[in-house]
């Protein structure tokens, strides 16, 4: 394939490189050649030149002043309270942020603007034209390079000594494996598999349902119709404060208690006794990608995930009615204990949260 360029000067029959049969007609206008810029005001007028000089120097001087001002503000605008018990005053932090930022930002800006102004108005700037060199090496060099490479390859005998070559390739192919295997212990190496861990929460038979935030047990009568309460299992409080279990359960176990008129509830077969007087408990973890769900519309019993707007109908077994989620919100079967508090009948009957490969229908 030819590397011939279409002649910008419009030769009669320049050849299009890709189609040997096409003929390019002549260009209509010949290149008039480089156009030279008019002299700038600062090039011809001494006064304008001195004014530009003062402008540039003025910007640099102002930048120095602002840098000094930055240091002054750093010292005089305190953010540390006199009495540590008082805590920080947000207003002080904002004043500090504003004064430090404005002085530093303007100082930087002025140094830059001064330099650009200097280049534009005072540095003599003839337009320079350089020829481009061809990027491809010339044929002689390419041939020489290839010959050198072949000589080297010949000297190793890489092509001839197949036993050495293949054993080397084999060894090199295996060597990355340790690097991969070493990463194995990024995940836990004992206990249940990742998917098995997903199948269980700390909900279990008889575990009391506690309100979130205050961690108080809940009686059926505490909930009004239309109300929604975020809740956690009582066993959550027993988890150690340090270590990951607590926050991991926080990501799996939260439920929402809602109470609605029993006649509004469409109960799926097998779930007839999962609620208590119109109180139902659903997982708070969205089955789409796991955001905690939070926007409840009482009149329709619709629950909307604020992340991606999956919408679930809590009066219809948590069925998806809009959005990208593919499966219903898991429902927690609940009952009442001897003291009248809400308890779980069991753990969730299916994994909470997003779909994953190992889970079954």
């Amino acid at each position, binding site marked *: 394939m030819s*590397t011939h*360029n279409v002649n910008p000067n419009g030769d009669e029959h320049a050849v299009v*490189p890709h*189609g040997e049969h096409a003929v390019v*007609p*002549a*260009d*209509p*206008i010949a290149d008039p050649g*480089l*156009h030279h810029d008019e002299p700038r005001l600062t090039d011809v007028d001494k006064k304008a030149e001195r004014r530009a000089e003062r402008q540039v120097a003025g910007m640099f001087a102002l930048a120095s002043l602002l840098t000094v001002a930055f240091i002054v503000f*750093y010292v005089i*605008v305190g*953010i540390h309270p006199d009495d*540590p018990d*008082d805590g920080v005053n947000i207003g002080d*932090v904002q004043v*500090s942020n504003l004064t*430090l*930022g404005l002085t*530093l*930002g303007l100082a*930087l*800006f002025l140094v*830059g*603007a*001064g*330099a*650009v102004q200097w*280049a534009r108005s005072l*540095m003599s700037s003839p*337009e*320079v*034209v*350089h020829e*481009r060199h061809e*990027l491809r090496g010339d044929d002689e060099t390419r041939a020489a390079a290839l010959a050198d490479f072949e000589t080297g390859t010949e000297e190793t005998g890489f092509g001839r000594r197949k036993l050495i070559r293949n054993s080397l390739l084999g060894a090199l192919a295996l060597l990355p494996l340790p690097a991969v295997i070493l990463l194995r212990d*990024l995940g836990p190496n004992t206990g249940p*598999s990742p998917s098995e861990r*997903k199948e269980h929460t700390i909900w279990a038979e008889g575990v009391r349902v506690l309100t979130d935030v205050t961690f108080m047990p809940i009686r059926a009568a505490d909930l009004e119709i239309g109300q929604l309460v975020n809740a956690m299992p009582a066993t959550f409080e027993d988890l150690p404060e*340090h270590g*990951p279990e607590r926050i*991991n359960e926080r*990501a*799996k176990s*939260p439920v929402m208690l809602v109470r609605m008129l029993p006649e509004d509830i469409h109960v799926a077969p097998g779930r007839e006794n999962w609620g208590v007087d119109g109180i139902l408990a659903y997982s708070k973890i969205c089955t789409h*990608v*796991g955001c*905690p769900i939070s926007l409840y519309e009482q009149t329709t019993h619709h629950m909307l995930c604020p*992340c*991606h*707007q*999956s919408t679930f109908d809590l009066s219809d077994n948590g069925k*998806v009615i809009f*959005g*990208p989620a593919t499966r219903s919100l898991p429902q927690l079967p609940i009952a009442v204990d001897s003291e009248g508090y809400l308890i779980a009948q069991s753990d969730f009957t299916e994994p909470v949260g*997003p*779909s*994953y*490969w190992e889970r079954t229908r």
Partner: protein
Amino acid sequence: MSAIVNGAGKVVDFVDQRITASNWLKRNIRKVFPDHWSFLLGEIALFSFIMILLSGVFLTLWFKPTMAHVVYEGAYVPMRDVGMSEAYASTLEISFEVRGGLLMRQVHHWGALIFLAAMSAHMLRVFFTGAFRKPREINWLIGVVLLVLGVAAGFTGYSLPDDLLSGTGLRIIEGGMLAIPIVGTYLSSFLFGGEYPGDDIIARLYPMHILLIPGLILALVTAHLMILWYQKHTHWGGPGKTNTNVAGAPFYPIYVAKAGGFQFIVMGVIVLLAATIQINPVWLWGPYDPSVVSAGTQPDWYVGFLDGALRVMPPWEFYIFDHPVTMSVLIPAILLPGIILTPLALYPWLEQKATGDTREHHLLDRPRNVPVRTGIGVAFIVFYILLWIAGGNDFFATILEIPVNWITWFIRIGIFVLPPLAFFATKRICLGLQRRDRDKVMHGRETGIVMVSPEGEFSELHAPLSQAQAYQLTWHERQLPSDPGPATDANGIPNPNYRSKRVQARLSRFYFGDVVQKPTREELESAHHDGHGAESAHRDELPSGQQ
């Protein structure tokens, strides 16, 4: 002045006696750099990256990348006695107990937003002007990788403070990983060190964010600039500016002063933004709690299109041997980035294949002169913006006062309908602009002066263009679709390559078939000779100001 020269001279002399620096300097110190506003976009990306590095180093001096549980007792009273990770507590410390700490946090975050915006704009500039063509394909590829690394840097950084928003972002990442067939749960378990969120992830993201990713970015930026330096910058055509030369200002002093100054201007603007516009006030969000999320929260802008794709997917899931394959997550979170990045990375080669053009190009294309490429670019922008709108569908629903489901449905349909429409509309507009350029060259500029001939004929007076003006509209190459040639040669022997040539010819017709060609010399001459007697006759009578 001479003192400076003498001082510099001594340094150069020292270096030269050891590594022959004079040789390199002689060739490069007056290297030509062409000037155009659009060439500054890449500089903004580079300079904001430097600002991110500087502010980032400052932040590492206080930030504690660990999820160890602490009870906050610092200066910010509303959070006292709240349990949180050390990462979040140290972020509060930087914000409230280190003077200038909040400023540097905001500089770092603003810098990141601008870095990604500038890279994206730079990439669009390179695309629409054809600057990716041979010999610059390598730099295009490096640019694509840099964009991906930039997003990775941004996302890992977003996750580090361990506030409510960053944790929610990670949770969505986990949901995306779980959707990957067969290995999803294991990948998630390796990343988080067990169940989500565990107490490892911050410590694991930290070295990615401060070492690995910025190190790769720095290395690739260096390669990007070295290649740019070696190949010389592209430039716009025009009088005296051809495919075989480069016209502009010398590197030293003009380019050094302008680009060096611009560095300070970019840094200054970022600091001014950080001083005046609050960004990511993590003390308001609170520490991460997996059971809490606030409505209406948005990711940083560069992740918005992915979040939008997650939002608008219909609930599509099927089973392979009783194992769920959740396409509603797999497509947007895993497949979409590949669907976007693969053609983006390969575009220079795809276009080369279609047009059959394998020559070096150093002159930029005006977007109108390659209508199909410009149309493809605009179609992609429309596609991206639709997903981006989807990422803020709740926000748009609120301001437009319509149900969020309507917006979701609009995007679900629009994502298939609007990009092709944008392609055709853009192509038409480009062809119209080309036609106008051609008319200008053929008949001159419309003056708005209408003449009545003695016969009562009305005609508008056209002022001819100067040679430079006319050349400005015609320096681009004439783009002709390639011709596959005859299927058989003169002796009736079939050409064995005819099939592939015909496919290639069809593709090049897609690119160039509708292009409005600039006039040929003959066409121009005949336009001046007949039919437009009025304009040439009156050419001399125009006031000189209108010529």
